[in-house]
């Protein structure tokens, strides 16, 4: 057991946690905007998959990782608009339309991959960025400051999201629309407009999350996300619709996953019980909420379509 708690193991687990966290974090932040404005988008995973394929394909063709990420973002934006048309304009039942978007993304990304690419061909990945000085600190440097630029940007998106939601007029409108759409409407806020905007932010971030995943792994495959989008949605609830909380949830989920993997490598977890250990991230996320939650309330208008005058 003593070899388990070495610094090397700690460094590896922390670095791994950060990598596993980022796609979840980006997608969950996007979903946070949507839910704060009263729209649940269960199709995040489908958008991530199409973002991942698009990002992968563009990098494959151009060799430029940033162009790939941009393409993933654009596809995400487009699907965000589509989600908004369905959920806001057509006022569809959100839980169900999201499942449709998920299935569409799952099938479509696979179909496009098979037809346009064929077998998995590796692509360029994001270059690591060593933060000057900080990267050279023993252990700490390796844990936190030798990642790729997108990882720093993803964590930077947390305070930015928090600022936008809590400190800007736009954020105030989002919250108003999510809590009291009728009142917001009376005050001249366009409920539909705000919800379109949050769906576009959510779609773009989901597209980026998928792009980050594919370009970090340097590969695409059928169902690349493996349900990460659904976990991201769960983490929005975990984080009680607050960017900091969402980040905490993503880090917790990523950390438990990384820790379990490390313990499997070190043979601390016997292979017979391996599946039981793989449950840990899910179980701990639920338990954490049982002990921590209770203080927060969902946006009142979540999943409720708004129609003026009814």
């Amino acid at each position, binding site marked *: 057991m003593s070899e388990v708690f070495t610094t090397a193991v700690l460094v590896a687990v922390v670095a791994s946690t950060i990598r596993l966290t980022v796609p979840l974090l980006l997608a969950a932040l996007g979903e946070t905007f949507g839910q704060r404005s009263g729209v*649940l988008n269960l199709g995040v995973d489908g958008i991530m998959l199409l973002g991942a394929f698009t990002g992968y394909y563009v990098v494959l063709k151009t060799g430029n990782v940033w162009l790939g990420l941009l393409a993933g973002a654009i596809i995400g934006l487009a699907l965000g608009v589509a989600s908004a*048309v369905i959920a806001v304009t057509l006022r569809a039942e959100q839980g169900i339309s999201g*499942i449709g978007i998920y299935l569409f993304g799952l099938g479509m990304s696979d179909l496009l991959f098979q037809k346009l690419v064929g077998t998995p061909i590796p692509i360029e990945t994001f270059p690591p960025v060593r933060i000057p000085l900080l990267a050279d600190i023993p252990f700490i440097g390796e844990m936190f400051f030798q990642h790729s630029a997108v990882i720093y940007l993803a964590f930077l998106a947390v305070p930015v999201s928090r600022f936008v939601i809590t400190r800007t007029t736009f954020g105030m409108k989002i919250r108003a629309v999510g809590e009291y759409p009728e009142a917001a409407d009376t005050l001249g806020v366009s409920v539909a407009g705000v919800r379109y905007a949050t769906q576009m932010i959510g779609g773009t971030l989901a597209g980026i999350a998928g792009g980050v995943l594919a370009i970090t792994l340097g590969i695409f495959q059928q169902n690349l996300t493996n349900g990460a989008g659904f976990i991201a949605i769960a983490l929005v609830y975990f984080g009680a619709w607050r960017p900091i909380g969402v980040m905490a949830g993503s880090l917790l989920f990523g950390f438990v996953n990384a820790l379990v993997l490390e313990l499997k490598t070190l043979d601390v977890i016997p292979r017979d019980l391996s599946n039981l250990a793989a449950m840990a991230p*899910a*179980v701990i996320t*639920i338990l954490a909420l049982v002990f921590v*939650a209770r203080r927060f309330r*969902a946006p009142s208008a*979540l999943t409720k379509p708004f129609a003026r005058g009814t």
Partner: protein
Amino acid sequence: MTVNLSHKQRRALAYSIPVLSVLAALAIGAVMLVLLGANPIEGFAKMFIGAFGSVDALVSTTLKATPLLFVGVGIVIAFRANVINIGAEGQMVLGGLFATIAALYLPEMPSIIMIPVVLLAGVAGGALWGWIPGALKAYYQVNEILSTIMLNIVAVQLMNYLLRGPLIDPAEIERGTRIPQTERLAESADLPFLFGSDRLHIGPVLAVITAIAAYYLLWRTPLGYRLRAVGLSEHAARYAGIPVRRTIALALTLSGALAGLAGAVLVFGSESHRMVTDGSTTGFTGGAGFNGIVAALFGALHPIWTIPASFLFGGLLVGGQSLQRAVQVPSALIVALNGLVVVFVVAADRYRVKLLETDVRDLQILDEDAMTGGDKVSAMGSIHDRAPGGTGPFDEGGPP
């Protein structure tokens, strides 16, 4: 919408909207087929024939529809209590596991006892996996979307653990092939076949009975009244003295129980009469945990309408497979088409509801007692029609 439609015309139009939406989605599918170099007319002909064109096709469709109907009815019950159950995938797995364990470890019994016992074990497994998020929501304010997504992950790992370890077929260890599956389960637990068929088992009949029972439960019993009252307004229900928390937990438990039954029927009605895993939830459930939600919506969130809705949706899935075999397109296309159909149907649903609402208003049923009248609207409409000012799932029992 034109106002001049007669009551009957409006009604007919309303019911044809889901069909029209499916056709619109298939039109996009036709374009995709052409782009893939396949003949869409041939494809759709094969799709229709494969789903409804022969006795064999009808049997396949009915069998595919069975888990959708079980899950769909469970979804209806949960929705009526204002609870979203997206954990049916995991609940089906638990139902399958409990039923399998019962069949493996119970002594040999005559079918007449064995079958009800193993199916009830499945019900218990699903109910447990529904009760957990229900209780977490009711007593700890853990949102059910979070807990069910997480419990789906737990369920698949539990299945893989059990099937590659404690429950594995001893012959697999002997041969060294280690396929994660149980031995063939006791023949006394095989679901009996109907009409001398060698595939059509009693599962579909059970599903239809379940749907009718759910209708009776929701609209003819005090429990159903409580479920619907909580769904319409938690505040009002609380003032009426209804134990809101217990009712919410119960709604998810019932929903899970039916998903568990679907899982059990999948095991004992399967070709292989055993439980086997490919490592994923969907490999066992066939995605019925999600598609059942869609079937429930197709069925206007009404247990009885969910019967034909599941049948048609099952036909779509079975037909999609024959289309794939006939014109040899990647099966990924079928998944994408499935998604498009769901999106189109759900997006057009508002118009159907609108037509029916006008209809109901014409008939002046709304003047009846508030509770019953409201029901008639929501029975035919979707959950949009819930009383305005309904509260968020977290409103209940917060800190003072």
